[in-house]
């Protein structure tokens, strides 16, 4: 087991190095001069030159690349052009909002997705199966940002049930502890007995989490159905049934356990999708996370921020996938032995 993990970790290094390299050159070789963007159209040639020197842009590309690599290894992603703040600090400030949104989207998509998949597989070819698979197909065909707007239109504007955006009612100001507002709200509740922060945080999460979770939900439901159907055809299930074990127990105890493997893989892959999909959802719901931050950085052509943001998201994506793979190998010894 340890050998497998070490092997995977060793393979990680060239991938991370590759990601940093690709992102660096993609941005360095793109048209447009960051110094000119920063100073605006009316800047004089001399001032642009001065800034280029300060940013190290006048050095040859390979030197810039070498310096960038050196800094990234030290976890220094440079300074944002727009705010002058360290990119790593900006990421740290915006990360909790995205993590919180992604976690709740994931909880929603995984639980409902597996439930729908199980319902479909156990009632194959019934109207429940047809209905949930048809909605899953509609789910993957939908533009996320449109769904988010439709949600706002129906549940916020028409029915006035949920807020149109933001993470928290500004009246309930509090000093964030972990940055995950639900957790913070829970801590506030324990400390002072006031549930307002917790409730407001949950209230603001409902629509964005459902909107972000819809596509992953549809994918999870489909994979659960096909994976469970495959397992249900196997002999040991027939044996269990003929032994008189209750159907519910057969499905949840014996079948689903073995059907879970492909589901874990797919759910793991969705983490990257959630992080990237957050750009659209966060923009629509004015959710102050990494996605919205990155979008504004792209808009402002804030090169260090864009570079840092993509490297950060990609590396998290790679690490999470590695974690899923290791988890997978724990559950399924075949993987690490092959």
């Amino acid at each position, binding site marked *: 087991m340890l050998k497998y993990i070490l092997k995977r970790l060793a393979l990680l290094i*060239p*991938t991370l190095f*590759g*990601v940093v390299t*690709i*992102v660096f050159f*993609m*941005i360095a070789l*793109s*048209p*447009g001069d960051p110094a000119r963007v920063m100073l605006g159209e009316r800047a004089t040639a001399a001032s642009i030159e001065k800034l280029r020197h300060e940013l190290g842009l006048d050095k040859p590309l390979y030197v810039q690349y070498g310096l960038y690599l050196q800094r990234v290894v030290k976890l220094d992603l440079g300074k944002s052009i727009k705010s002058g703040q360290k990119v790593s600090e900006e990421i740290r400030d915006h990360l909790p909002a995205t993590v919180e949104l992604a976690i709740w989207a994931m909880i929603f998509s995984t639980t409902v997705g597996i439930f729908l998949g199980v319902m479909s597989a156990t009632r*194959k070819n019934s109207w429940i199966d047809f209905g949930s698979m048809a909605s899953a*197909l*509609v789910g*993957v*065909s*939908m*533009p*996320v*940002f*449109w*769904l988010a*707007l*439709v949600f*706002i*239109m129906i549940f916020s*504007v028409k029915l006035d049930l949920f807020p149109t955006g933001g993470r928290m009612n500004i009246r309930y100001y509090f000093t964030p502890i972990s940055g995950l507002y639900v957790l913070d709200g829970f801590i506030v509740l324990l400390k002072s007995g006031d549930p307002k922060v917790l409730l407001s945080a949950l209230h603001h999460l409902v629509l964005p989490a459902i909107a972000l979770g819809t596509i992953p939900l549809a994918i999870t439901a489909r994979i659960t*159905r*096909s994976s469970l*159907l*495959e397992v249900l055809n196997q002999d040991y299930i027939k044996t269990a049934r003929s032994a008189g074990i209750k159907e519910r127990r057969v499905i949840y105890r014996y079948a689903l356990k073995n059907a879970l493997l492909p589901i874990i893989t797919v759910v793991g892959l969705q983490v*990257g*999708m959630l*992080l*990237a*999909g957050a*750009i*659209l959802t966060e*923009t*629509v719901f004015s959710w102050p996370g990494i996605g919205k931050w*990155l*979008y504004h950085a*792209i*808009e402002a*052509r804030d090169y260090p921020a*864009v570079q840092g943001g*993509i490297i950060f*998201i*990609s590396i998290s*994506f*790679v690490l999470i996938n590695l974690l899923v793979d290791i988890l997978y190998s724990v559950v399924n010894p075949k993987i690490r032995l092959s």
Partner: protein
Amino acid sequence: MNTEIQENTKEKSDEESAEKNSLFKEAVFQLKGNKSATIGFVIIVGFILMAFLAPWLTPFEPNDQDISIRKTAPFITSHILGTDDLGRDLLTRIIYGSRVSLVIGTISVSISLSFGILIGLISGFYGGWVDRIVMRFIDIMLAIPYVLLTIVIVALLGPSLVNAMIAIGVSQIPQYARVVRASVLAEKENDYITAERSLGASNFELMFKSILPNSIAPIFVQATLGVGDAILSSAALSFLGLGAQPPTSEWGLMIASSREFVTSAWWIVTFPGVAILLTVLGFNLLADGLRDVLDPRMKD
């Protein structure tokens, strides 16, 4: 002796092509019986017809503004789906929008397909260090989430519809290369390839005339799914202001510019989204059906 072998092989390949022909017919027959493929096909044909016949389907022009009838509600006047904030007929803009979306879908998939096929074919066929380097590179590309890669490429190239197509096409290349490589690896081990090689077929012939046509099925499924994906991505890019620019009647852009009317004119937000949903659904349904027919192992 040699000619005898050649004749034998020729006979065999004739048989094979006859068999392939009947396999093709069989596939078409099965597709007709496949519900999801049929529905998907009908939807797609509908949208293609809409795109081609646009000027004959509507009496209005997509960019004709008339402030006096702005935000007319749907199903009341001759503007069946209502008008937008500038008084442009919404249905007309949706009809013309199908042109933009189908073009984006086809062009970006063609970009990913052509490069993906080339890279996957070379990598799978030659194997060895070529394959190792290519696959390493593709793994790295796949480490960057696709949506993010698209957004960054288009942001760097500058926001426009053409750049959006390039960005979507380029960022999908790794996926296609992987699919192609996998089916090439399976195909090249077959005896008929060894036979052709011993008869002096060049690598080029083997790759493009023998292996590629025989490993096309999964690529076809991927490309069908890809068109739907590309339409979704381009709508997302336009929504973020990185794709089509006003006054183009692009569905994503139409949704973006309707954002401020969420409270006052639901139809401007709703209908373009329904158009995207239907088109993408069409391609997904067709791809599902194709997969069932072309790759029976995937069937439940």
